[in-house]
């Protein structure tokens, strides 16, 4: 399994854009990159997934350079409710609903007013 490295914590203020970078130097050719968000006392929630270049949805954007050895989750104009732990995961093989997810320790984002 490709190992991921991401900052332990980040601080931001409401209205700012937050970029969380994840390193995954050993990513395999058919691995996808997925980000989850977890609020205290809740299960992780899928945010975004990508393979290469840029993916955008209503919540976030995911930037993946050509070498795919890193990725950046971008949260536009964060609010207090974006305070959570964000996990970067790299898939083991094809992206199917039956893969066992490997979580690291995540990045704890604290948004201040």
């Amino acid at each position, binding site marked *: 399994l490709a190992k991921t490295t991401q900052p332990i914590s980040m601080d931001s203020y409401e209205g700012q854009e937050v970029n969380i970078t994840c390193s995954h130097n050993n990513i395999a050719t058919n691995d996808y990159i997925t980000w989850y968000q977890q609020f205290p006392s809740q299960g992780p929630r899928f945010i975004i997934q990508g393979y290469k270049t840029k993916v955008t949805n209503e919540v976030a954007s995911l930037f993946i350079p050509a070498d795919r050895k890193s990725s950046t989750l971008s949260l536009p104009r964060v609010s207090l409710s974006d305070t959570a732990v964000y996990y970067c995961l790299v898939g083991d093989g094809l*992206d*199917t*609903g*039956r893969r066992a*997810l*490997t979580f*690291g320790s995540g990045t704890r984002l604290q948004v201040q007013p």
Partner: protein
Amino acid sequence: DAGVTQSPTHLIKTRGQQVTLRCSPKSGHDTVSWYQQALGQGPQFIFQYYEEEERQRGNFPDRFSGHQFPNYSSELNVNALLLGDSALYLCASSSGVTGNTIYFGEGSWLTVV
């Protein structure tokens, strides 16, 4: 459409006892995975069930066992509880369709005293 539901939400057990946690997957999903999340850590994969059989297993002892029923719901059983089993137990629901998103329940908090 109900999401992933877990019960109970909180429970306290004594060392040496046994516990059973329950999970109902999201409608249309046939695969249930269980994760253990210790305080301050990312979730760790325990095992996965589909077609009523254990299909994948993480690095957990045999004290951890499970079952899947014909309606796709699942149970996680832990025998001979240890203090270190205190954690949030998460159920994840999915299907075998390529690219299918994995959904988590809100978890069951187990405290072993």
